[in-house]
């Protein structure tokens, strides 16, 4: 197996909003984690636990006030080895929690074209990229010429994601990307993420409250509470630790929670199921024996 290629590393990072002001608010403490090429990781946790804040550090939108964050990707640092913010932002594509914060051009086309143009692509290249990313996100050609304000909530979210994909980032950071998407679009988006990882070796960091998707897609899940990472591991490891999840008011996935209930009623559950299919398998193992 090839060695893991770390693209971004965080060591003992802390962050405080409004430092020195009466409204000071410490949001992150002692965060250490690596973003590895080709890995999908999820951040989960209660509202206010610091997920969005952590995500904003990854593309240098905010800088930590203690600890260290390093970008190891080619071409994002200057001769002195210091990160150049513009380059970091291009390499680490961030999709905001609210698409309205991101989509601001007159037409959907212009909006998706904005990033590629900034990066110096020719009009022909830009057009190709716009059409390709729109297709990836399942946006009809006719939508490209509408103004973003005429779109439904879910469609606007797809446009915001397309705008970031068009910049061809190496790390894709998504803050609640499925919020507002209909169930089939969520499935489509999940396959798209797997495809991007497969074809482009993209690393993906996702904050999602849609825990079933976090479980299905992630190589590793980090659980946050009160600005700290309180639990991490594979989906199965994390969702097996019911006590920790309860302690930090982190949601559970239905398959795991029903399994726990069945186990409490005397059913034998071999390993924590993550899907309805796996749970059905566990139930059928008990049945008839």
């Amino acid at each position, binding site marked *: 197996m090839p060695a893991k290629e770390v693209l971004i590393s965080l060591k003992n990072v802390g962050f405080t*909003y409004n430092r020195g002001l009466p*409204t000071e*608010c410490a949001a992150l403490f002692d965060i250490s984690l690596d973003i590895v090429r080709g890995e999908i990781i999820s951040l*989960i*946790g*209660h*509202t*206010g636990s610091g997920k*969005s804040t952590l995500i904003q550090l990854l593309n240098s939108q905010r800088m930590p006030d203690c600890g260290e964050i390093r970008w190891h990707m080619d071409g994002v640092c200057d001769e002195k080895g210091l990160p150049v913010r513009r380059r970091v932002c291009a390499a680490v594509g961030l999709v905001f*929690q*609210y698409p*309205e914060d991101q989509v601001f051009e007159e037409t959907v086309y212009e909006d998706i074209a904005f990033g590629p143009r900034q990066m110096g692509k020719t009009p022909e290249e830009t057009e190709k990229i716009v059409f390709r990313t729109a297709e990836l996100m399942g946006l009809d050609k006719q939508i490209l010429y509408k103004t973003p304000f*005429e*779109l*439904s*909530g*879910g*469609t606007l979210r*797809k446009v915001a994601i397309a705008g970031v994909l068009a910049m061809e980032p190496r790390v894709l950071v998504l803050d*609640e990307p499925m*919020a*507002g*998407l*209909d*169930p*089939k*679009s*969520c*499935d489509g988006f999940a396959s798209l993420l797997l495809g991007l990882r497969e074809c482009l070796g993209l690393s993906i960091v996702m904050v999602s*409250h849609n*825990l*079933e998707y976090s479980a299905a897609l992630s190589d590793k899940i980090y659980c946050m509470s009160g600005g700290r990472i309180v639990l991490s591991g594979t989906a199965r490891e994390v969702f097996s630790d019911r006590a920790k999840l309860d302690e930090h*008011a*982190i*949601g*559970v996935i*239905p*398959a795991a929670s*029903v399994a726990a*209930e*069945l186990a409490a*009623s005397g*059913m034998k559950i071999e390993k924590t199921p993550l899907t*309805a*299919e796996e*749970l*059905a398998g566990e*139930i*059928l193992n*008990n*049945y*008839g024996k």
Partner: protein
Amino acid sequence: MIEFKNVSFRYSNEEGAPYALADISLNISRGELAVVVGANGSGKSTMARLLNCLLVPTAGKVFIDGMDTSADENIWKIRKKVGFVFQNPENQIVGTVVENDVAFAPENLGLPESEIEERVSYALEAVGLIGRREFMTAHLSGGQKQRLAIAGVLAMKPDILVLDEPTAMLDARGRDSIIRLILKIKNELKITVVLITHFMENALIGDKLICLEDGFARYAGAPHAFFMKGGEFISKFNLKQPFAYELLNILGERGIRFAERDYIRASDPAQLGAIIMGAVKNAR
């Protein structure tokens, strides 16, 4: 009582402009909880905007407690009756401090100080933000803002509460707490609730489910019966089975069969374990 009578709507009057809603006729009774589902762009938010006169039908009529939404003299009466929680709470927050934000609308009604205080406490308690009443709203995270938006509307004591994806930005526990809150609002306060959601689990809590497709109402009836029509039918609308139904269906295919009443009971996730234990005991 909400009545849609042959309602069509389009955002532009130009020749050939598409209809966002097409010939919709349906009723939502007083005290009912109606859940609206459908693909992105199917017309759910448009339907909601017709309820508080933000939009008026291009053809047909919407009546709120018998009042025609297209008659100018009804607009303010209807807006007082119908509380609205939009998709994005950011646009609804007006105060810099949590309690002031919730007090804003009741203050505008000119209510006495004690009544305002009572409503603010009630609303913040209901949404679980009572401990943050002196917090700056700008410092709330996304999910906390969403709850604040709901509190702001509850403080107006509306007859009808329309929620357009109120849980879209909440973590799983926050979502459950809001769903419990919605049920409480319906059961204890007898408020008519219209809930738009993409969470199929939550679509089951309604007394009535309405499914839109390209502006047409394709279903209006019992939620469990809709999802029992099977995966193929539902996927036409970009929807999926709720987890409980998916599980019961898989078990059914493998020989543990469930009756319709099991599906109805399974609409409450707390019942699912008991239903399965019962079926496994019977099968032994």
